[in-house]
């Protein structure tokens, strides 16, 4: 049985693409056949995070407009050979793909893949509506920040209206020290408003940035806290019961950073 996830957020820049790349990589590293679909047409960058930009031949629009079969447009990952990317076009805009075409494509892909992950553009306009159309499960990414949580709330409402009722939450870029000091929303504050099932709490981690620049998601790095959090989420998506990471206490955190060579 294949499962289709859409990774969405409302607010931009909260880590949808980072999450898509890491979860896709993680699922594939555990032997699953995975395809990632970039629907952020015009602002694509999932290919960059995976280090695959230079291998793109065709894109999503070529597929939905029937110019090539989807298999021809897939880009296989360099290291993990059960991971594929279907990139989007950098020159077209979000009206170039219509929801039905994406649904049809995803249903075709179900035959070949265990997981289909759709990276959604920010906002609640057409691009969002197209991206969510095919999904079985929506993963809402937010950050511990008022405006991101407000937008997540709005998105959850929109998902409900589109009859997408299975919704999971990932909170990204948590800074334990700031939460401790009361300078950042804690998980309780967030759950209080959003009240949906949380499957991941990802710390803010410089390794995310360095790994992005190298085209290798941080889930591959054993010394990355965010990588560990993503590995836990992958396990949960595969049905394992994994307790949430307890973030190191500030003092300990500093030491840890030191050990990791910062």
């Amino acid at each position, binding site marked *: 049985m294949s499962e289709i996830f859409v990774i969405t957020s409302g607010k931009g820049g909260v880590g949808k693409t980072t999450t898509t790349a890491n979860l896709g990589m993680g699922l594939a590293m555990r032997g699953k056949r995975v395809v990632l679909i970039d629907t952020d047409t015009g602002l694509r960058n999932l290919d960059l995070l995976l280090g695959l930009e230079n291998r793109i031949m065709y894109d999503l629009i070529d597929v939905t407009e029937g110019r090539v079969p989807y298999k021809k447009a897939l880009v296989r990952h360099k290291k993990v050979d059960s991971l594929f990317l279907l990139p989007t076009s950098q020159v077209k805009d979000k009206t170039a793909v219509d929801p039905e075409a994406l649904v049809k494509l995803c249903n075709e892909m179900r035959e070949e893949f265990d997981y289909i992950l759709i990276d959604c553009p920010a906002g609640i306009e057409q691009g969002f509506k197209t991206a969510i159309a095919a999904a079985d499960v929506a993963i809402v990414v937010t950050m511990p920040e008022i405006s991101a949580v*407000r937008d997540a709330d*709005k998105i959850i409402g929109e998902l*409900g*209206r589109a*009859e997408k009722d299975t919704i999971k939450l990932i909170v990204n870029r948590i800074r334990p020290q700031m939460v401790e000091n009361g300078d950042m929303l804690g998980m309780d504050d967030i759950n209080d408003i959003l009240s949906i099932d949380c499957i991941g709490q990802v710390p803010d981690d410089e390794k995310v940035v360095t790994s992005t620049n190298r085209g290798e998601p941080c889930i591959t790095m054993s010394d990355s806290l965010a990588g560990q959090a993503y590995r836990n989420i992958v396990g949960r998506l595969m049905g394992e019961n994994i307790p949430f990471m307890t973030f190191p206490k500030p003092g300990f955190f500093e030491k840890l950073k030191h050990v990791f060579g910062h």
Partner: protein
Amino acid sequence: MSEEIVKIKGSAAGGLQLTFAPQATFASIYDDIRAKLTDGNGFFLRGTLVQFPREVFSDDERSQLTKLFHKYGLIFRPLESGTASHSGHERHSFASSLLDQETPAATATALPNWMNEAVAAAENAQSEAPAAEPDPAPKATAAEPAARPAPAESAPEPPAVQEMVVVNRTLRGGQEIRTQSSVLVCGNVNPGAQIIAGGSIDIRGTCRGVVHAGAYGDTSAFIVADQLIPTQIRIASLIARSPDAPAGSNEQSAGAERASIKDGQIVIEPIKR
């Protein structure tokens, strides 16, 4: 929980809709309903329209239930075949009938716009409602049904009762309820959500959004919530806003509170429920 004999949902007509476990006997249904009515969990406020699929009961059973509901001031009525067509997707038709009646005027904050719009919306809703109250003059309809304490004597006949909008879920940012009647929300009202009601507003959950009761000038309308920490409260033409605490600071109210107008001011006081 999944074995519940009688399930209650919001209905397209703005009342409650009952569904029944397939194997349930009439006696068990009757007992379950009576238990729900007497435990006063707040689902059944006086004046609420309660609907059920027509085919489930015999005439005799139906009249027994009608009497039971009347005793508690509720209107019990089979779904007409016209409205029954909603039932396949009643949850969604419910949502879309209440929400996002977006028109260019919807963003305007001037009171008259709200009034016109909401009256129009309410008139549409009225076409499904009983043939009573031909011209609901805004002032006259008020919040009476919800505001009236509920002695357990026999209720007025359906035509005398103003129906109430029931929302059985959390209202999230960007969602809006506009109605001429009172509103009962079984869920939270999140920041960025908005309720504009001709009557009173009762929130069985946390209220963080914008709530306007008595939007047509009824100064006796009130707002009740388990946690009342709204962005803004309006009753009739008065406005109170939350204190300028830094955004997101986690102010907690102690328990259920009620906002109403006293001596020309909005006051908030704790209540028990």
